[in-house]
């Protein structure tokens, strides 16, 4: 750890510490889960993930948690992505390509409107 040599460095350290604090405080306004089973990855889930992260960064949203999980047996629908806004039931999207992923982030995660035509039927 660098020795703090000035007030400016202390300020920077405090900002960093606060950021780390925020990371620790679980919960965000929205949670996006990407299914990363072997099937998901084979179907392109890695690109989906990248697209989600890039869109979040480009749109400068900060209160979103992106998680990943394994296969849930809907391999024909992969890549699968689940979006859950605070206090609402989760919504599952199928065949989420990179473009679709960007759209879901913009319309559902940021805009709050479910992208109906991409939702996996129950």
């Amino acid at each position, binding site marked *: *750890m660098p*020795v*703090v*040599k*000035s*007030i400016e460095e*202390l300020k920077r*350290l*405090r900002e*960093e*510490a*606060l950021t*780390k*604090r925020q*990371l*620790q405080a*679980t919960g*965000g306004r929205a949670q996006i889960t*990407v299914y*990363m*089973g*072997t099937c998901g*990855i084979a179907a392109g889930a*890695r690109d989906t*993930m*990248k697209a989600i*992260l890039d869109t*979040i*960064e480009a749109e400068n949203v*900060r209160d979103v*948690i*992106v*998680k*990943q*999980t*394994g296969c849930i047996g809907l391999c024909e629908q992969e890549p699968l992505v689940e979006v859950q806004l605070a206090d609402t039931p989760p919504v599952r999207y199928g065949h989420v390509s990179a473009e679709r992923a960007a759209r879901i982030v913009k319309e559902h995660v940021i805009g709050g409107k479910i992208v109906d035509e991409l939702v996996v039927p129950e």
Partner: protein
Amino acid sequence: MRYYRSHVMVCTSPQCVDKGARTLMKRLQEELAAQGLADEVAVLETPHIGDCANGPEIMVYPDRVHYAGLTLEDLPSLVEEYFKKGRVVTRLLSQFRPPVDKELGPPKPKEVRVVLRNCGKIDPENIEDYIAEDGYQALAKVLTEMTPEQVIEEILASGLRGRGGAGFPTGRKWQFCRAAAGSPKYVVCNADEGDPGAFMNRRVLEGDPHSVIEGMIIAAYAIGASYGYIYCRAEYPIAVRTLREAIRQAREYGFLGQNILGTDFSFDLEVRMGAGAFVCGEETALMASIEGKRGHPRTRPPFPAVSGLWGKPTNINNVESYAVVPQIILKGSAWYASMGTATSKGTKTFALAGDVNNTGLIEVPFGITMREIIYDVGGGIKGGKGFKAVQTGGPMGGCLPAAYLDVPVDYESLTSAGSIMGSGGMVVMDEETCMVDIARFFMEFIQDESCGKCIPCRVGTRHLLEILERICAGLGKPDDIEELEHLSSLIRRSSLCGLGQGAPNPVVTTLRHFRSEYEAHIYDKRCPAKVCRALIRYEIDPAFCTGCTLCARNCPVNAISGERRQPHTINQELCTRCGICKQVCKFDAVTVS
């Protein structure tokens, strides 16, 4: 700023670094890059995660997954399985479970947390957590914007008074020490906390050690000291360990040591352990103990500010006095002085004990009444019983009756009532407490802890105790009260240190406020609260006794006899007044008189 879906904290404590945390961190970054995750997962350092027993350890957010005992060989599969596919690798999970803090719940009604603001909220072993709560900002302000005189002015203006007992204005003490000739100068933190049942200081040391350390550095700057000691009792091993770790981290970050924050001010600090003698909390005895001598007090003056450790000017304050200093500097003296009464500013922590519903640690602003403390914060007397007295100020404090319930609590009001503020012990007693017995109890502690250096304290407290024991045993003599008063005044006036000078307090205050109880014991051979065994007798009321034999079967000395289904009787010759029969009787047939 780059958005990362996941952040990995790698513990870089010395233990974990020893076990290869830095290499692991580097290889983890490489492995993440190799698997194409470098711009999704960020790797950061942190000073503390678990207990470092099974390092290296990492903590992953937002999942809060804690891995420990990692080797370099684990990394490829960990990255593949967990970071890429999201499957927790259970075999690498840490077994460490952070201790749950049961001691300090959310603030109770009327509590104001200033000293305790960080306790239970930050990780005391992670300096970054303290820094996130504005930690060391006050130090930076003091070192770059304020002269030592201005710091002392600010503390004076805040009205802060010493929290170790006597309530001497902290700013004035610093002024004296700054003005004193001699070098080097020292700062000492009194963390001896010897009052039975008191744990206010321990809680701060264990929960927020850096606030004490920062307060001490600021004091050192104000008085011109270059070295400091925290004198902590050995019965507080967790506090000692936490402090040592906090000091190490403060040194690593450059808040202790040479040229603090790039200025030409240098200061360092160490922890000394006390072996638990009560008198070692007295400042001159404490300093003797730090010097490696026997922990005996000496006469004052000279005061420590003039001649303290090794004859050098020394500032000694209590844990709580130092702990609020950073906040006074940051938020201003006016903010601090806005809480409290005309003469007592700010807040005070108390260890609330005895017959109240919510016992435990509390922090309240001065000026609150005893009634509010007992009934609002403390939730009232246990079992809905009546209030009898409250004991403040620890063993050298005093007992106050119901007449003082509505007096605002501050240094002056407690002193004028014959008690003291002390360091924050507060024992609530219900109507079933015998005040003579309480005086005897405290005197037993004091005479046991008297160091024996001066005769009034050594012999006098012994004599006080003997008289009190006699009164409780039903052998009180008509002039005992006068003898107690005479002795008390003698001990108070002629003892060497605060221990002897305060020793008679429990006797004096109970005599002042509960004299009739002494008289009942001495003249009527009666204990009104029905506590003193020699003065009570247990009897069985034949009107209520069903002859169930429960009491007879439970009596440890077989003093109860009677036929089944017939009223029983107690043989007073054999009865030891243990009270078990009364406890077990289901028909309230056992009476005490």
